[in-house]
């Protein structure tokens, strides 16, 4: 039998006025297990704490119940007190007789009776409490970054600069993400490539960064601090070490493919470099469109390559990496424009998406930065921009706001005006959301000085008449129907998680929201952490965001990663699930209930096990266990049963 000390606090008058502390002391003195009981005005004060320490020493107590305020306030205080007296902190229980008793009841007799029961439940729990120690595990001091757009690049550079090794995995042949496609960036109108390419070069040359392009994460095993990652790289038909960027191969390649970098506004060959500043600077052979790797079928590029860089026998390769933390920065894609048949995209070449318009504006784009429409190269005299295309439309498309379209559409209109000073841009909008720093000024300047016409309303239909696009819409301010004749229409498409996200979610076993974006651990206070320990989120993978926000979040995720990597060991609460080997039948029900993947199956022993580091101690598996083999440390079935009986005891 334990020797329990019970210490009842008056909390000045807060408890004492409603709970008869003297009577309590008297009633509980003979309760089984209680070796010592006393009450005092302020248990949390220095004299109060000393009183506990003295009693532990004099009465040889091995565990302590403090009946006082909510454990949220002083549990750690009293755990510290008994630890100083040489006891394990888990031998301390708090009976909450203030917030959940004296402050909510008025009748002294009733409140005292309830306080008595609250203390008894604490005693009953404490009787079977074990001494516990935090669970610890070592930390592999390396990080993995998935996705190398601006968010991934920023996070990788921050971690690498701090002296830790980073592995970066990018699905596409070059890093840079969507940002490298952009023309100029709001609200400063500085050139996107000018600010991004130096960072891309920095990443490729950094001694702490290992880059895998054309690669995807195939599997992730392990847990925080100790992940084993398999990375699958597509067959590397062009050796980056040998390729000297002479461009001879593309001249002879007979295959034309829509150029992804130009959003389909130009062509590329089956062997190609995504764009001149691509990192890594090398050519890629697109096997899906290549005529075949048999020299009989084609083989022109290999014949032409003087550097002998092309090897048709290359195979996909799996790389294994051990890392301590994983940053997910997989970015966004546009809402599939095919879903919006009423806007005529695909039917009319002069209806383009916002990213296509970025390419038309860009100096490196298909028109060399000249404002020409795709169908006939004419300079558009009137352009209609349609904001919220596919977003803020819960009935038919995406319900959420894409956050960046108001600003980039205005930027598009401005850049168009700079290139075609006599041209007339119209913008259909629902609201103008310009919440960022200096964003509102950007809007006001455009409206007052640039002759951009805003029309509040939605576009119902777009069709072609002659060489003009007819835009039917509604001006919701005047309530009138509107028909505009334009040379070109730009759809500010909604934003969705990048197209491969659903597969990656399964590989990483992370949570996503209803739109498919990765869910942060807390929407306000833990915005860069995932709920799964060791995973961090950066950029638009977590939700639509502009460049400054993506970069801030990336640096935040890097800081969280560095905090983990800089510790030698990770510690974890020991209030976790355990398994009684003799009782476990190996039914695996617990494995399905665990949201953290902490319950695993031991194939040799044929029983379920608990990964101490992954287990968060929720207890869902314990109440699902049909045999009682799963238990929670310091809150076992037996403890809860005894607590229930204590509450219902009729003394």
């Amino acid at each position, binding site marked *: 039998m334990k020797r329990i000390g019970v210490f009842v606090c008056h909390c000045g008058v807060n408890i004492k006025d409603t709970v008869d502390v003297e009577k309590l002391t008297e009633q509980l003195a003979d309760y089984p297990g209680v070796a010592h009981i006393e009450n005092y005005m302020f248990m949390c004060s220095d004299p109060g704490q000393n009183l506990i320490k003295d009693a532990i020493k004099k009465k040889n107590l091995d565990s302590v119940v403090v009946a006082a305020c*909510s*454990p*949220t306030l002083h549990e750690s205080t009293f755990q510290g007190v008994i630890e100083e007296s040489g006891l394990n902190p888990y031998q301390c229980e708090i009976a*909450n007789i*203030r*917030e*959940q*008793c004296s*402050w*909510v*009841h*008025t*009748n002294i007799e*009733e*409140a005292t*009776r*309830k306080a008595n*029961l*609250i203390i008894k*439940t604490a005693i009953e729990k404490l009787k079977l409490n074990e001494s516990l120690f935090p669970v610890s595990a070592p930390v592999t001091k390396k990080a993995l970054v998935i996705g190398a757009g601006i968010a991934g690049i920023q996070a990788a550079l921050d971690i690498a600069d701090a002296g830790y090794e980073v592995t970066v995995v990018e699905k596409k042949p070059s890093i840079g993400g969507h940002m490298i496609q952009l023309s100029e960036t709001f609200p400063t109108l500085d050139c996107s490539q000018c600010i991004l390419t130096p960072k891309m070069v920095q990443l490729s040359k950094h001694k702490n960064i290992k880059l895998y392009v054309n690669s995807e994460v195939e599997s992730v095993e392990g847990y925080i601090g100790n992940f084993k990652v398999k990375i699958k790289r597509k067959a590397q038909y062009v050796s980056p070490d040998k390729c000297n960027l002479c461009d001879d191969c593309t001249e002879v390649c007979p295959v034309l493919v829509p150029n992804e970098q130009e959003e389909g506004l130009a062509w590329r060959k089956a062997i190609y470099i995504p764009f001149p500043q691509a990192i890594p600077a090398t050519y890629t052979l697109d096997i899906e469109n290549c005529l075949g790797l048999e020299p009989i079928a084609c083989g022109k590029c290999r014949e032409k390559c003087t550097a002998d860089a092309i090897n048709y026998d290359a195979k996909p390769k799996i790389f294994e990496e051990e890392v301590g933390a994983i940053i997910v920065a997989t970015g966004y894609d546009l809402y599939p424009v095919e879903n919006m048949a009423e806007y005529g995209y695909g039917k009319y070449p002069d209806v383009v998406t916002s990213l296509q318009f970025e390419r038309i504006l860009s100096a490196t784009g298909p028109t060399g930065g000249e404002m020409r429409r795709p169908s006939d190269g004419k300079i558009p005299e009137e352009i209609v921009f349609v904001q919220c295309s596919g977003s803020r439309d819960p009935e038919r498309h995406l319900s959420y706001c894409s956050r960046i379209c108001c600003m980039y559409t205005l930027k598009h209109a401005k850049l168009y005006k700079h290139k075609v000073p006599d041209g007339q841009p119209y913008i259909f909008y629902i609201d103008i959301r310009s919440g960022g720093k200096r964003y509102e000024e950007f809007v006001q300047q455009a409206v007052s000085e640039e002759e951009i016409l805003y029309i509040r309303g939605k576009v119902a239909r777009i069709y072609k008449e002659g060489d003009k696009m007819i835009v039917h819409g509604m001006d919701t301010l005047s309530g009138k129907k509107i028909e505009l004749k334009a040379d070109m229409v730009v759809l500010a498409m909604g934003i969705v998680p990048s197209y491969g996200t659903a597969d990656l979610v399964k590989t990483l076993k992370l*949570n996503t929201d209803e739109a498919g974006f990765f869910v942060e651990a807390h929407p306000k206070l833990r915005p860069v952490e995932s*709920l799964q320990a060791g995973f961090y989120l950066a950029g638009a993978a977590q939700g639509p965001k502009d460049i400054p926000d993506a970069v801030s979040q990336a640096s935040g995720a890097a800081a969280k990663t560095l905090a983990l990597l800089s510790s030698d060991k990770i510690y974890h609460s020991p*209030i976790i699930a355990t398994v*009684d080997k003799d*009782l476990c039948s190996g039914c695996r029900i617990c494995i399905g*209930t665990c*949201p953290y993947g902490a319950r695993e199956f031991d194939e040799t022993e044929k029983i379920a096990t608990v990964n101490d580091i992954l287990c*968060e*101690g*929720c*207890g*869902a598996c*314990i*109440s*699902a266990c049909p045999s*009682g083999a799963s238990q*929670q440390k310091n*809150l076992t*079935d*037996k403890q*809860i*049963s005894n*607590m*229930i*009986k204590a*509450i*219902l005891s*009729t003394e």
Partner: protein
Amino acid sequence: MNDFEPKIVCFLCKWCTYAGADLAGTSRMKYPPNGVVIKTLCSSRVDPQYILLAFKNGADGVFIGGCHPGDCHYQTGNYKTQRRVILLKKYLDQMGINPVRLRMEWISASEGRKFANTMKEFVEQIKSLGPIPKMNFTENTSTAESQRTQRK
């Protein structure tokens, strides 16, 4: 029957409802003292057998408080609780226990008022039902709980 004071066992999850109950305290909201709290990390820790054990030992009501759907600290624990409670209520009915005696509510850490009101309402409800019928389990006491104890 007028002086009947129900005994209620409350299982509150640490993150939401326990904190909501604390808030009712710091806001000095008054409610009847019939419920005594057992704190769990998550409402999904509440094994349906605890509820049966409570009724068997004379509880007139059992209350389970968890986070609102979507707010669970452990992602989906409250959904698991909900499934168990819905099923158990059917079983209680078959056993001759009014399912109203088992109540589950989503109460967040900011809903002290909701906690106090729910307690008031639940106590009134149980008072109108009267004490739980005496259940004669003396013949067969091999509930899973005692089985577990025996096996250990």
